């Protein structure tokens, strides 16, 4: 488990003693992993549940590569990311989720590199005392991961390799949280 004991924001624009610029320390219960390798769902659920008797709810989401997009047959994907910014962006999303709901453990795993049909791309797991917070936070994390975290998908079809465009529906989904 990652152990974040201290987290401070370094920026020349930071003003000391301004509450807006004080970063909230990431929880020790946060795991953020970017990897090429696959992950095992049951192992991830065990990490969320082990020695965690205070949380009654465990909500997990797993995104996979599907064989079609916009009417085209898809063979696979190549995923690129911006190392270090990705982790920072995902940590910001988790921090925002923790401000909105009381949550237990949070895991985000995102794979990069070449992925074939049916392979797992992303995992988000959230625990909380009752189901409402874990359901909402899991969806919130995925909605913002889609529009904020610096990952890019290149789709491989029989005839071409194409960088995907952002979906308007994803942008709108993230915007909906502003009205919550």
């Amino acid at each position, binding site marked *: 488990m990652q152990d974040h004991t201290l987290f401070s924001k370094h920026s020349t624009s930071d003003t000391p003693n301004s509450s807006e610029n004080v970063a909230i320390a990431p929880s020790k219960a946060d795991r953020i992993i970017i990897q090429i390798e696959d992950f095992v769902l049951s192992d991830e659920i065990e990490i969320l549940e082990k020695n965690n008797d205070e949380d009654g709810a465990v909500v997990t989401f797993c995104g996979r590569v599907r064989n079609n997009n916009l009417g085209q047959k898809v063979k696979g994907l190549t*995923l690129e990311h*911006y190392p270090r910014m990705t982790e920072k962006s995902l940590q910001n999303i988790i921090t925002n989720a923790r401000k909105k709901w009381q949550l237990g453990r949070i895991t985000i795993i995102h794979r990069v590199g070449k992925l074939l049909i049916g392979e797992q791309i992303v995992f988000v797991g959230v625990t909380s005392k009752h189901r409402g917070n874990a359901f909402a936070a899991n969806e919130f994390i995925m909605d913002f991961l*889609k529009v904020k*975290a*610096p*990952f890019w998908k290149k789709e491989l079809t029989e005839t071409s390799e194409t*960088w*995907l465009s952002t979906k308007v529906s994803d942008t709108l989904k993230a915007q909906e949280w502003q009205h919550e």
Partner: protein
Amino acid sequence: MINVHFFAALREQLKCNEIKLNAASPITVKQAKQLLVEMHPNWQQFLLNNSLLTAVNHELVEEDYVVNLHDELAFFPPVTGG
């Protein structure tokens, strides 16, 4: 000196992962783009694309943000992960 990184479709369009920008003093993101276009005129059509996102030291910023010397500047298309 400002380190500039490019990602995904933009990296392929420019055929460049990373470039060093010689700047004597802090400059805005907009000025950094103009300097890059002066160095590589054929980059104009890609760098002046309005949908392009900019990050400085791993945080998203706007065109008027001031980039300090030794900052890490990055340009990339809208993200499509998940």
